[in-house]
């Protein structure tokens, strides 16, 4: 069926989407979109099992983070619950040389890049601002101002072209993550313009989780988001964001197009934020329980499990082992988060400028002297 379209009355959005695994766990061999592009995956049994393991693991780590926040160990947490397939599929679709520019919710992508999941916890615990070396990990720092990172991603992609690193299978590409709310930002639209004009090797991966905190998609757009790409001169594809196979297949194809020098693609991963925007949010104020329930039936993990069972690729021993190892990893993560030391107050003066500043230096000294003045005093 064109663009994976289903009959009206089902849970597929009007206009359809690319779906390679139904919520019931049925495999769709391939999907050919209205643009004539065919998407498919060719995984071994092992690879299917590992995808399942990824999905379960990132959900379990996310649950641990939510618990840590509720116990006062994190200042805030932005849960990815419900978006595991979009993140694991697109993350696994990246090749080692590819660069990701995340928002603050891409813990699943981070995990698939082989990065220690502890990395963003400094930010959420409040011991730093989320610092790591983006170039080393091929994963930029989390960006909190909505949409700002899409321009950084575009510039980085322009740099790839300028370095002559496109035009073959070993070429580099960039993936920029953002949400449905971000598509209203000027920066995202500028990133689309620039990427189109400069034919940049970039994939815009929009996780449309239906809400920008409390505001539903209808407050951001009158047309399906993927169709916006046409106005900027590059292809747009909508996928079932809860289908890890579609997420992988379409992202892999788009990244490979980009690295070959074929320019940008916009992917709209149609998904749902099962939890709150962050731990500070109360979604019961703006959405009804039945809506959440209807999305539970489209759970990204349950469908993979159903598929593995039907195909006899995995059994209860495997599922139990995956759950156990995810739990162990989560508990280990918890221990390490609890062991994160608070920074020394004086460290706030570090890393303001690469070349330093006499003004900052003077304030550091004054602060140190002020702190020292309390030494030996009793409160």
């Amino acid at each position, binding site marked *: 069926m064109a663009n994976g379209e289903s009959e009206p009355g089902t849970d597929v959005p009007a206009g359809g989407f690319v779906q390679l695994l139904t919520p019931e766990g049925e495999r769709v061999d391939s999907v050919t979109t209205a643009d004539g592009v065919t998407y498919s995956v060719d995984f071994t049994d092992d690879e299917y099992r590992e995808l399942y393991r990824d999905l379960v693991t990132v959900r379990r780590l996310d649950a641990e983070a939510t618990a840590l926040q509720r116990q006062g160990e994190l200042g805030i947490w932005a849960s990815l619950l419900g978006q595991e397939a979009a993140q694991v599929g697109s993350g696994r679709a990246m090749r080692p040389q590819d660069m990701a*520019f995340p928002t603050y919710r891409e813990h699943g992508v981070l995990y698939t890049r082989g990065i220690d999941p502890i990395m963003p916890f400094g930010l959420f615990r409040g011991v*730093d*601002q*989320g*610092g*790591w*070396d*983006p*170039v*080393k990990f091929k994963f*930029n*720092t989390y*960006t909190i*101002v909505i949409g*700002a990172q*899409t*321009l*950084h*991603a*575009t*510039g*980085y*992609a*322009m*740099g*790839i072209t*300028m*370095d002559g690193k496109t035009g073959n299978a070993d070429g580099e590409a960039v993936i920029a993550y953002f949400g449905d709310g971000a598509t209203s930002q*000027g*920066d995202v639209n*500028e*990133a689309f*313009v*620039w990427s189109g*004009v400069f034919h940049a090797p970039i994939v815009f991966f929009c996780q449309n989780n239906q809400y920008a905190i409390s505001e539903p998609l209808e407050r951001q757009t009158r047309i399906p988001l993927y169709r916006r790409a046409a106005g900027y001169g590059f292809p747009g594809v909508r996928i079932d964001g809860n289908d890890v196979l579609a997420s992988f297949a379409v992202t892999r194809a788009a990244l490979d197009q980009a690295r070959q020098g074929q320019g940008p693609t916009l992917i709209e991963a149609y998904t749902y934020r099962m939890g709150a925007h962050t731990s500070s949010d109360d979604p019961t104020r703006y959405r009804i329980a039945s809506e959440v329930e209807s999305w539970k039936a489209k759970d990204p993990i349950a469908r993979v499990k159903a598929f593995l069972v039907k195909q006899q690729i995995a059994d209860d021993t495997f599922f139990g082992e995956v759950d156990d190892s995810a739990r162990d990893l989560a508990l280990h993560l918890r221990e390490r988060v609890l062991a994160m030391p608070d920074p020394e107050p004086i460290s706030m003066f*570090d*890393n*303001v*400028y*690469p*070349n330093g*500043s*006499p*003004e*900052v230096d003077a304030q550091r000294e004054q602060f140190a002297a002020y702190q020292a003045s309390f030494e030996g005093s009793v409160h």
Partner: protein
Amino acid sequence: MAETVTLGKALNHGLRRALENDPKVIIMGEDVGKLGGVFRITDGLQKDFGEDRVIDTPLAESGIVGTAIGLAIRGYRPVCEIQFDGFVFPAFNQIVAQVSKMFYRSLGNVRLPIVIRIPYGGGIGAVEHHSESPEAYFSHTPGLKVVTCANPADAYHMIQQAISSDDPILFFEPKRRYWEKGPVELDAAPDFPLHASRLIREGTDATVLAYGPMVRTALDAASAATDDGRELEVIDLRTLSPLDMGRVYESVRKTGRCVVVHEGPGNLGLGAEIAARVTEECFYSLEAPVLRVTGFDVPYPAARVEEDYLPDLDRVLDAVDRTFGW
């Protein structure tokens, strides 16, 4: 052998030298390519260095700075041109929330050696948004450095120093002085630090602090003051963030009087910070409060009245007089 060139041409020479010296230096902005920029500061550079290194960008200031960040992460050294002072605000978020914080956020892992060039200031008879002095906004933002040149020699050297620095730098260019000429040693290396103020006229009776377009005004005032028998000491601040105050304190301790001049509105402008610091450091040397001669706290007015808005020689001398009346 010094050549006599305009300030604008000195910048052009400086940019050319930077492009020659480092293949990672790129220039990006609106109309910087074929046209050479609306002020011709990048004239001829695209022709000689190619469209990949002197990039005509889409008309989107946030995009210019935002993509420069990505290019810098990739290892480039972007020099962004914002066409006019009043057009920097669409890029404000990328500058104050991203450029300024990336080094800090990444715990020192990401350097953004980005220079953002902004022609600023009034006096050219322009329409709205073409004559503003927004330097205080950026000086108020930790993580950014802010400099401004006032003569061709500084323009030539400071732009190269800014480009070779790993700090993100806002480089303010006094657009009404683009056509003023002066000697420049084009083959000489810079012999003065980028982030340093400079004593440009010695005097004994009062210290006048100025930067960018107001340096010429301050020097003119100092010349005129000799008619009243007063010798004004003039310091070109050059660096607005960080400020280089040592030289200023030394001068004020000697003269006992201090007047700060800038075009931007007085309220919370550079003059306010400078006055506070001078008061703290030179309190017992001061014969009078530090006075400010600035633009008024109104939107930049229509061109036909801008001469009354802008600090000029007479207003500077009036302020000097008032420091003697205390």
